[in-house]
């Protein structure tokens, strides 16, 4: 299918929403439908898509997934879960929220419910927040997610709540169909002074061609603290587009660790802005691109208010015929005095056929700021390798050891051991596989 047809396909999908007897609970949803009619497909000429390989996104007219009953069972969840069985758990199957497989709270401090029902019930918070962040600087696929909003999830943590255990969010891809489009949607609101952590996993139980177009919006109220770890470990035929929007109020803390292992093609966008001063945001990322894989990481951290800080730390390893893109943007607006913004990106290139394109950008309009970025691209340090080998460690194992150490600086920030261990296993497996394949 050629690109004009693909564009027409998605416009039609969005337009169809208007014919379904929709109650437009959220005007932003209607607006998104209109946006899809106007926005172009992503193309290389747009700065934020400059290095992204586009065919995986544009060569197939993905069809919206349908809710397939009796496909996903409790046993599957048992196998995939990373938190204790009794922990709060949100399960999404191809983007559809499955309450029956989830573990829902029974006390009042945490609310987990379907977005659609929250909207239908006239929930004021959801009305106010849904689509508020994702609507800005939108591209076609953000708008498409909002326009076709299905059974997404609304997670609300009440002011002052202190959660001892993480909330697990499990996205499972599994279908009899192929070339389907899953569009998970999450809205997270963390109340004033509340503290919580989220352990999120994207997993595939079938190896089919699909596009996972996910949008997550997170609002942190004053003094809130959220730790958010994400593991993307989908099948090698999956195309994964994740957009994360975060808004932080005064004195709030947000820490995100994103680990990208799976998918033929993955792109993760982080959009952060502040609605109060003195907030801190830490973004950590690791990507491992094996043969025929590509990973993109896009950061857009806007310091629009004074006295906030952000530290973004991304690392990647590239093997085989692979590609990675790191596009880190930090903008410091004129009002944002006393900003402290740090950005770093380090890459290990292990193959002749790998390519990394990285552009760490600083755009600064205030003078009393501390901003820096550093980038490195290289292969494994020969001296390090030699040192290990001189201690009797075989070459392959030494390489493995160095790569693991390199990655662990990021993996170790997840703060949830079973997630970290799974990530380490996946890393070890992929490194070993690449080693067998000859780098």
């Amino acid at each position, binding site marked *: 299918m050629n690109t004009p047809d693909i564009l027409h396909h998605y416009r039609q999908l969005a337009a169809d929403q208007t014919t379904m007897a929709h109650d437009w609970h959220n005007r932003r949803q209607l607006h998104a439908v209109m946006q899809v009619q106007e926005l172009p497909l992503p193309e290389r000429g747009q*700065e934020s898509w400059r*290095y992204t390989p586009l065919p995986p996104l544009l060569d197939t007219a993905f069809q919206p997934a349908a809710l397939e009953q009796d496909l996903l069972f409790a046993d599957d969840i048992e196998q995939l879960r990373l938190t204790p069985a009794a922990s709060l758990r949100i399960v999404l199957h191809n983007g559809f929220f499955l309450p029956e497989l989830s573990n829902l709270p029974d006390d009042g401090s945490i609310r987990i419910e379907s977005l659609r029902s929250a909207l239908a019930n006239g929930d004021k918070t959801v009305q106010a927040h849904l689509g508020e962040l994702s609507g800005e600087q939108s591209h076609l696929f953000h708008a498409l997610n909002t326009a076709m909003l299905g059974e997404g999830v609304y997670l609300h943590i009440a002011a002052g709540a202190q959660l001892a255990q993480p909330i697990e969010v499990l996205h499972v891809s599994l279908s009899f169909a192929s070339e389907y489009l899953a569009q998970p949607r999450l809205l997270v609101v963390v109340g004033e002074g509340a503290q919580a952590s989220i352990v999120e996993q994207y997993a595939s139980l079938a190896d089919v061609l699909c596009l996972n177009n996910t949008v997550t919006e997170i609002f942190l109220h004053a003094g809130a603290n959220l730790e958010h770890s994400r593991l993307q470990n989908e099948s090698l035929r999956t195309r994964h587009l994740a957009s994360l929007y975060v808004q932080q109020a005064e004195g709030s803390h947000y820490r995100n660790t994103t680990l990208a292992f799976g998918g033929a093609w993955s792109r993760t966008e982080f959009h952060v802005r502040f609605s109060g001063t003195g907030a801190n945001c830490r973004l950590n990322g690791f990507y491992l691109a094996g043969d025929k894989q590509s990973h993109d990481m896009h950061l857009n951290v806007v310091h629009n208010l004074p006295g906030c800080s952000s530290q973004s730390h991304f690392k990647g390893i590239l093997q085989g015929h692979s590609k990675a893109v790191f596009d880190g943007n930090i903008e410091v607006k*004129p009002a944002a*005095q006393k900003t402290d913004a740090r950005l770093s990106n380090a*890459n290990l*290139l*292990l*193959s*002749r056929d*790998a*390519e*990394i*394109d*990285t*552009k*760490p*950008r*600083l*755009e*600064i*309009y*205030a*003078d*009393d*700021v*501390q*901003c*820096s*970025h*550093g*980038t*490195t*691209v*290289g*292969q494994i340090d020969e001296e390090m390798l030699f040192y290990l080998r001189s201690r009797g460690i075989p070459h392959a194992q030494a390489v493995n050891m160095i790569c693991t150490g390199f990655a662990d600086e990021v993996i170790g920030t997840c703060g949830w051991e079973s997630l970290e261990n799974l990530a380490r296993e996946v890393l070890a497996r992929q490194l070993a596989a690449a080693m067998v394949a000859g780098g």
Partner: protein
Amino acid sequence: MDAAQRHVEQMRQTGYAAGFVTSIESDTVAPGLDEDVIRFISAKKNEPAYMLEWRLQAYRKWLDMQEPEWAHLRYPRIDYQAISYFSAPKSAKAAPKSLDEVDPELLRTYEKLGIPLQEQKILAGVAVDAVFDSVSVATTFRKQLADAGVIFCSISEAMREHPQLVQQYLGTVVPQADNYFAALNAAVFTDGTFVYIPPGVRCPMELSTYFRINERNTGQFERTLIIADKGSYVSYLEGCTAPQRDENQLHAAVVELIALEDAQIKYSTVQNWYPGDETGKGGIYNFVTKRGLCAGDRAKISWTQVETGSAITWKYPSCILKGDDSVGEFYSVAVTRGAQQADTGTKMFHIGKNTRSTIVSKGISADRGQNAYRGLVRINRGAENARNHTQCDSLLLGDQCGAHTFPYIEVANPTAKVEHEATTSKIGEDQLFYCRQRGLSQEDAVSMIVNGFCKEVFKELPMEFAVEARKLLAISLEGAVG
């Protein structure tokens, strides 16, 4: 108001030291651009037929091109039909053989700028090919250079006297239609400099050209071509300043450097064109394409620039590192104050094996100045063991200005090692206080700190140029720095 802001305020109120106009009659063509104007320029320069054809080709390509909009710059649309594309001082027709024959008014202009030709001739041993508007009017030391086999002349002269060299190399590094401004330059360039250093020759002196834009509404389209043959060395100095004007003046120069095997070219620029008034009105628009090709193994090209002038600077002196073991360097100081905007940086293309590049960029922003570094480091698949180190620092003076860094790093070879660092800072109150406690005035302290910030770049300039650059920086940040 803190000390740094006060300092900026003082700087802002200082006028532009080089703002004066020399009155010399010019032979100017009516504003506008079409094929006839190009034919006129070509005829006026007594060019061979191949050059006219080449110009017309470029013009036709330019007509189909779009003015780039990706740079971090804002300026009103340029009306290319309102520009006059040719002007030559009348005295040029007399083709002076020595400085004595040069229009004394012209010499006085240089003197006001602190560039006494005579003195330089004696003291520094620098050959000066002074370009006034668009035509070379004075060339010195021709004989000494000729003895060494060095060709140093205007490019129009080279087209007539050395057609084989011009035809072989012109447009090989910056193709006719490389970009919008380069294509325009190819169509209408009026003059510029040509240098050829024969194999194994170390050019006996530093070559230098002072540019000066003088004519109202006259675009300045220089074209420079420097060829360093095998094993040769040349250091070329380019410095420029322009008098105060009300209308924006477009400058779209092209510089091509070719270094063959084991050759080295060092190209240094001090750019101090009129930046415009406080609102940016009347300043020069500087859209320059500079690129060097390390064609042979072990060739080296080094760009050093001190950019303090112009309302708009759009400039990315680049190196194509084709030869194995070739080296590219870029050292830059860019100052933006008032309403000045600069989008400048470099591109390093690593193609050959063991190629190395170094980038050091120092941006200083004051008032409402906007300073952007934009750089590309590309390591191709075959560039084994390529190395790049980039250091990119910004200094902000005042809370109205901006400092931006847009690096692009593309690596397709695992043996490459690329490092990029960027920092942003302001002059610390504690630094100022420390200096003042030791008896230095606020102005001297600021000047000292800023010069320290630029040190890594200034040390790359030839000695006499470094002195001038330091002086220029002081004048640029003047008010306090008397």
